[in-house]
């Protein structure tokens, strides 16, 4: 109990719900003075939400926050800052249309101290009259960090600080973080890179699905322990009826794959991705957040055009200028974010029937009977529970997700691109979606399936490609795709290699992108 009073920052049972989605269920975090504390968790575990709550950017539904022995709930970042709690967010909090100097004035940052930290972090000759919008992302993040350090906060939170940085800057940042722990100062450090955590952190708190599942002292073997905690008890994760496929069963070799990607690249995020997707298979995609998978799916679905490389459909090169082109070619996309896919204020019927009226020649009279039949069939196939209300936004997250899939099932599926379709939905719906994807593949469809939940891979996929830093770094058969293997591959860790061979992991500099809800 004496320890408790010495804590610099303590959050207890913090919960936060966005509409129907629980971002944090019961998160707790205790930071001792003078330590670098890692906050770990898989995608969507609630790390960023917790940081936002601690800095007052988001108000929690419940929970207690104690800073420096006094209970305090900040209502804005400015208030948290005055209380000595400062965060460097994933998106730099610099005003794009103001120059660096004005940005400093806006936050009342002492310029001398800022210059000192900037030099310490390895950026010299920064033109203070340059607009923030023209500076590269890495520089912006360093400026953001130097600005935070300049006001000497008690608690400094770094959310994926090293994600956008080249290797030399990453080293400087880690050195500064290492040196920053003082008598009374602490750092909360969020990173996907285990190697960095091991290098600078004293302890790690692990979140899983919005709940704190453990605190680990960073001694030898801590990495394994963290991975175990992040994954959770595998036994409870298996759905009632798995659709596991006999991994040994060889597919008859096909002459031409349904979809072929050749060296696709885009916007420095996607560097070189090639794969083949066949009819009748579910191809899994595994990647940490922000490794280029978002861009890959956007390109395949016609939302963005690639900078390089080509796509082949049934062996013939295709170029999609608009999602409409992809849809016409039979390539449909289940978007990551339901908010991107649904007409929230409209009915289930209108949402499912949306693609049926999108082309000019479909603008005329709607055959309600035919539409009803198709929609009902889709609702039936996905067991959508429509009792909650007439508008889609009144449905539960799981049912909303089913509507986004039903939209395409209603029209018959040739090729489906699913981007994390089971994020944030209940377990029953998840297993229904697994079964549906398997059924689609068995009926001859080709399915590309990205998921942030690695345990799903074994349940659904025939093969899996792993993307890291915009490149395919591994291809794994269903038989071998157990979670530890996948996770190691996703971190680009050779399964038994010593840690120091992967130091240059940091060179790949993709940014992580925060997705709300």
């Amino acid at each position, binding site marked *: 109990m004496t320890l408790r009073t010495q804590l610099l920052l303590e959050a207890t049972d913090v919960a936060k719900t966005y509409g129907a989605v629980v971002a944090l269920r019961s998160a707790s975090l205790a930071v001792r003075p003078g330590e670098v504390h890692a906050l770990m968790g898989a995608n969507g575990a609630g790390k960023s939400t917790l940081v936002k709550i601690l*800095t007052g*950017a988001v108000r929690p539904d419940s929970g207690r926050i104690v800073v420096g022995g006094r209970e305090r709930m900040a209502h*804005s*970042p*400015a208030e948290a*800052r005055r209380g000595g709690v400062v965060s460097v*967010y994933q*998106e*730099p*909090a*610099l*005003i*794009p*249309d*103001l*120059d660096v*100097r*004005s*940005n400093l*004035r*806006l*936050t*009342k940052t002492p310029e001398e101290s800022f210059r000192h930290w900037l030099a310490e972090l390895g950026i010299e*000759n*920064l*033109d*203070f*009259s340059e*607009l923030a919008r023209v500076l590269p992302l890495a520089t912006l993040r360093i400026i953001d960090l130097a600005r935070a350090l300049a006001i000497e906060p008690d608690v400094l939170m770094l959310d994926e600080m090293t994600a956008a940085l080249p290797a030399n800057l990453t080293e400087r940042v880690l050195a500064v973080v290492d040196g920053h722990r003082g008598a009374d100062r602490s750092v909360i450090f969020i990173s996907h890179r285990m190697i960095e955590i091991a290098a600078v952190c004293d302890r790690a708190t692990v979140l899983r699905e919005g709940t704190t599942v453990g605190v680990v002292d960073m001694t030898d073997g801590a990495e394994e322990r963290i991975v175990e905690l992040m994954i959770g008890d595998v036994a409870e994760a298996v759905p009632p009826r798995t659709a596991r496929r006999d991994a040994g069963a060889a597919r008859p070799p096909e002459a031409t794959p349904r979809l072929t990607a050749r060296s696709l690249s885009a916007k420095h995020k996607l560097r070189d991705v090639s794969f083949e997707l066949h009819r009748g298979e579910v191809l899994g995609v595994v990647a940490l957040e922000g490794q280029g998978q978002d861009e890959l799916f956007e390109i395949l679905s016609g939302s963005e055009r690639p900078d390089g490389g080509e796509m082949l459909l049934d062996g013939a090169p295709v170029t999609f200028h608009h999602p409409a082109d992809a849809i016409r070619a039979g390539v449909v996309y289940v978007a990551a974010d339901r908010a991107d896919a649904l007409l929230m204020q409209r009915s289930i019927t209108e949402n499912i029937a949306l693609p049926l009226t999108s082309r000019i020649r479909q603008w005329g009279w709607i055959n309600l009977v035919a539409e009803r039949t198709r929609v009902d069939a889709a609702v039936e196939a996905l067991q959508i529970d429509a009792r909650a209300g007439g508008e889609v936004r009144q449905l539960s997250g799981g049912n909303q997700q089913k509507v986004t899939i039903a939209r395409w099932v209603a029209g018959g599926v040739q090729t489906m691109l699913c981007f994390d379709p089971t994020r944030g939905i209940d377990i029953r719906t998840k297993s229904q979606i697994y079964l549906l994807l398997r059924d689609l593949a068995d009926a001859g469809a080709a399915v590309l399936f990205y998921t942030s939940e690695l345990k799903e891979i074994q349940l659904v996929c025939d093969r899996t490609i792993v993307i890291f830093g915009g490149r395919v770094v591994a291809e794994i058969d269903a038989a071998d795709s157990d979670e530890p293997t996948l996770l190691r591959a996703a971190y680009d860790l050779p399964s038994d290699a010593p840690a120091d061979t992967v130091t240059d992991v940091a060179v790949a500099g993709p940014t992580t992108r925060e997705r709300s809800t």
Partner: protein
Amino acid sequence: MSAVAGPIVDTRGRPVVDALVAWARRNGWTLSLIALLAVLLAFTKVINPSYGAPGIQGLAISVLPLALAAVAQAVCVIGGGIDLSIGSMMALTSVVAASQMKDQSEEFGVAVILAVLILGLIIGAVNGAVIVITRVPDIVVTLAMSFVWAGAALLVLKTPAGGSAQWLKDLVLGPAGFDWIPKAAVVLIVVVAVIWIPLRRSTVGLSIYAIGSDRLAAFRSGVAVGPTKVIAYATTGLFAALAGISLTASTGIGNPVPGPYTLMSVAAVVLGGVSLAGGRGGVFGPMIGVLILVLIQNDMAFLSLDPNLALVSQGLILIGVVMFGSLIQWRRSRR
């Protein structure tokens, strides 16, 4: 038109030249506007060789209210909003000033002007507060408030009437000592300089740019978003009041029916390089934009063309400029 200041770190050894180049690049839009204005002035002189000091003075007088309206619009657009009630606020402040100053002493006129300026601040702040509190979009609120302020103006005066203190008329009419420098231009520059430049350099001014540029980043930088928005709209109200007073000063009366100032101010702001998305631009560009719009109108008259064609060309310029602007933005986002 951000002022360039401070030492520019430079390794190539020609700081002054580089600074100038950087400044010119950053203010490219305004510089091209000035060039366009110069061309227009030259064109005016060609088609109307007698165009001289009186023409410039007439131009300054007719530009003054619109230029102030454009400045008013620029402030709230920079803050990420838009104010469709500027014309109505001008009408209201103009009739209040004219009706109160009529047949009163010169000294009383000073008090009236001060009171009207405060009135402008208040009605602007009301616009902003309604937007912040109800969370109804800026466009809808200011559209509705344009009814309210225009109605209020009609309550004050049913028809154009009232009067103006003599000193107020003297302030804007005629040349400022030298024939080529009209008083109205001096007044405009002084007023804008006295209000806008200190504001822009203050933290409040930075905050206005910040909420317009990136609301979330501003919030995370510790900017009080709601109050800043109210301040931006109050400033808009203040400039609208100045514009209304300048109407009274130049015409000697107050007209309760709003002129075309709201729409023209939007056109001038867009033409002046202020991004409708907020956060970008200044008040200098819109003032040049107003000069260009009014000069086109004048030139049409000199060419004895139908003045209504000036309206058409102003509309086409507005459309052309915004289309061009969004095309640039679109291309930039594609990269």
